[in-house]
């Protein structure tokens, strides 16, 4: 009998602890109405960033992100044109494969892509999850980012002079640095040429 009474007392004590929360403000976030502010580093969907001034893509089709991706969610086709420059023909990101690890962002030297704090992309159609370059760019238009490319643009400047309008400006500012670094970039491009994985990729995926 005593045991029962003791037990009851303990139960009431426990209820007291829950009771203390009665008057308090709830921690619940009323989601569709109020939303958390995403931290800066939040890793939501991947977007392609555009140049802050002229709105063109930052991507130089170097394919580093594709190689860094552990799930092979990124697919880039960028054959070399007649002028030996890489032209972005296809940039696809499959969000059904992506694991939001952020390795692509780390691999990118040109501030071309970023994992943002956006997360509301549920859909009724599976095909909507395969984003092409336009959608990736559109979603990324309003994303604020630190352009770590500024110095490096000048190195790469000789490459895409035709396509990007912002180059003349950068060329004007510091012409000295251009001479020092093209050699490095040229070496890089050579390496990519030798491996030549560009043509083989679509085939292997098609087979699969």
């Amino acid at each position, binding site marked *: 009998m005593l045991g029962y009474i003791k037990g009851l007392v303990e139960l009431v004590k426990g209820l007291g602890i829950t009771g203390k929360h009665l008057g308090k403000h709830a921690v619940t976030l009323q989601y569709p109405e109020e939303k958390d502010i995403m931290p800066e580093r939040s890793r939501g969907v991947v977007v392609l960033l555009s140049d802050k001034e002229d709105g063109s893509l930052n991507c130089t089709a170097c394919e580093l992100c594709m190689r860094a991706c552990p799930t092979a969610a990124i697919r880039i086709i960028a054959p070399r044109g007649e002028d030996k420059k890489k032209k972005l023909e296809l940039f696809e990101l499959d969000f059904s494969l992506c694991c939001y690890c952020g390795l692509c962002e780390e691999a990118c030297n040109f501030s071309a892509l970023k994992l943002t704090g956006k997360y509301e992309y549920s859909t009724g159609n599976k095909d*909507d*999850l395969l984003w092409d370059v336009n959608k990736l760019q559109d979603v990324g238009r309003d994303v604020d980012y630190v352009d770590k490319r500024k110095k490096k643009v000048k190195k790469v400047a000789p490459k895409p002079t035709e396509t990007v309008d912002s180059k003349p400006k950068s060329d004007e500012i510091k012409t000295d640095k251009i001479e020092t670094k093209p050699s490095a970039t040229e070496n890089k491009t050579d390496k990519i040429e030798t491996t030549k994985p560009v043509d083989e990729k679509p085939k292997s995926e098609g087979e699969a």
Partner: protein
Amino acid sequence: MGIIKKLPIYSEKIPGGGIVTTSVEQILNFAQAKSLWYLLFGTACCAIELMCTGASRYDFDRLGMIFRASPRQSDLIIAAGTITKKMAPRLRTLYDQMAEPRYVIAMGGCTIKGGPFYYDSYSVEKGIEHIIPVDVFIPGCPPRPESLLEGCLTLQKQIQQRKLADWQEK
């Protein structure tokens, strides 16, 4: 089910019967959308986020979503986590045990297409779409609780737009 499905056929023969169809449709859809009881079907990482969504901060109950342990009492499967080939028949069984109308949310990359386990994995099912029909896909690995809530809102919207005629056909 039969009566509801045949309601439009009979009521529209009566003059003004369309009103009955529409209002029944609206009421039914509203009732369904606002009380989606979901089956706790969590297998992996997404299940932890599903738990977080059910807990204090995000509180699933606000959307009328209460977890049920039995498939017979639930309207919705949230397939949270990797479905392996060994697990796939069980998922199908659970789906078959649910009463109509039933809905499926595929939460996270693994259930959509295999996610990180699409390549090089011999035991993971490459998406659940060929096991059970899916209504809403939520990308993410794992999706944030907010993503899940948003996915559920998407499903509710989908349900409210349904017509009586295709009420149970899936």
